[in-house]
């Protein structure tokens, strides 16, 4: 059965108020996410401020090409997500399913590149905490800090991308079963907010991790 009624849920006066409540709830969650990642950004700031030259050496070992291509992949996936929300607003069910699927596929592409990158890091012996880790030079312990931060930040981000893909896939299935309408599309809008947030985090991670001291 599809939920296409134009009436708001009984605790709301109007549909507009109901939409505002959904958006507000998501933004409050995203504020907690900013601070969740914020702790790692704080750690990054302190360690980089303490050992700026070690960060330049260690950052050179990362694959900036994969990092940059992945940034483009996520930015494109944000475009397809925005177009999915627009399709939902207009009640275009087929376009909605198509754009959600495309967004999920771009997310999977991102994780695929990430897997290739992590494998490259393993082959290059820069995965900290395992016996094969090896870094030449007097600043090896500080470089290890950089690699820990790199894996913690990109790893936490990759978990968020995975969650996003799962949620978008569920939304695509619901859209396929005609669960949304121009009056009832907030799950899509709110999923979009989460996905764009994950994109914003990567926008900062790319220059901070991959582009330190290439000059």
């Amino acid at each position, binding site marked *: 059965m599809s939920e296409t009624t134009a009436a708001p849920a009984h605790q709301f006066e109007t549909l507009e108020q109901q939409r505002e409540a959904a958006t507000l709830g998501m933004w409050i969650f995203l504020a907690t996410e*900013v*601070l969740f990642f914020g702790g790692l950004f704080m750690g990054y700031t302190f360690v980089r401020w303490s050992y700026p030259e070690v960060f330049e050496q260690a950052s050179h070992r990362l694959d900036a090409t994969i990092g940059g291509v992945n940034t483009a992949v996520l930015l494109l996936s944000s475009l397809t997500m925005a177009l999915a929300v*627009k399709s939902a607003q207009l009640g275009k069910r087929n376009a909605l399913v198509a754009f959600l699927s495309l967004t999920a596929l771009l997310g999977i592409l991102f994780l695929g590149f990430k897997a290739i990158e992590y494998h490259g890091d393993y082959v290059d012996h820069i995965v900290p905490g395992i016996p094969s880790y090896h870094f030449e030079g007097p600043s090896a312990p500080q470089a290890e800090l950089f690699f820990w931060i790199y894996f913690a930040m990109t790893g936490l981000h990759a978990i968020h991308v995975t969650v996003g893909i799962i949620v978008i896939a569920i939304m695509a299935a619901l859209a396929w079963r005609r669960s949304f309408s121009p009056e009832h599309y907030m799950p899509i809008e709110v999923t979009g907010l989460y996905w764009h947030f994950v994109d914003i985090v990567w926008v900062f991670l790319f220059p901070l991790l991959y582009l330190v001291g290439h000059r």
Partner: protein
Amino acid sequence: MIPLPTQFYIKICAALLALLALTWGLAYIDLGSWNLGIAMGVSIVKAVLIMLFFMHVRYSSRLIQLVACAGFFWLLILLSLAMSDYRSRGWIPTRRPDLTQSDR
């Protein structure tokens, strides 16, 4: 909210990709200490574009706009208070004999 034109979303995405190219290119040019500042400036512009147009903050109520900024404002408090502590250590000489220079 009235749906925005598809063309408009494509233009925003094109601007974001252009800014990505700018960050990437500037990383290979030596601007001294300006490299980090400019890279962060470009990232902030990208984040603001995503928030205003993809996340519709530009078209949301004041309440949503305020909450959207709140998380980032608190992050700024975290970064500035913690770093002002680390940066200012040792500015005032301590007279405690049991503390060496490196402990300050």
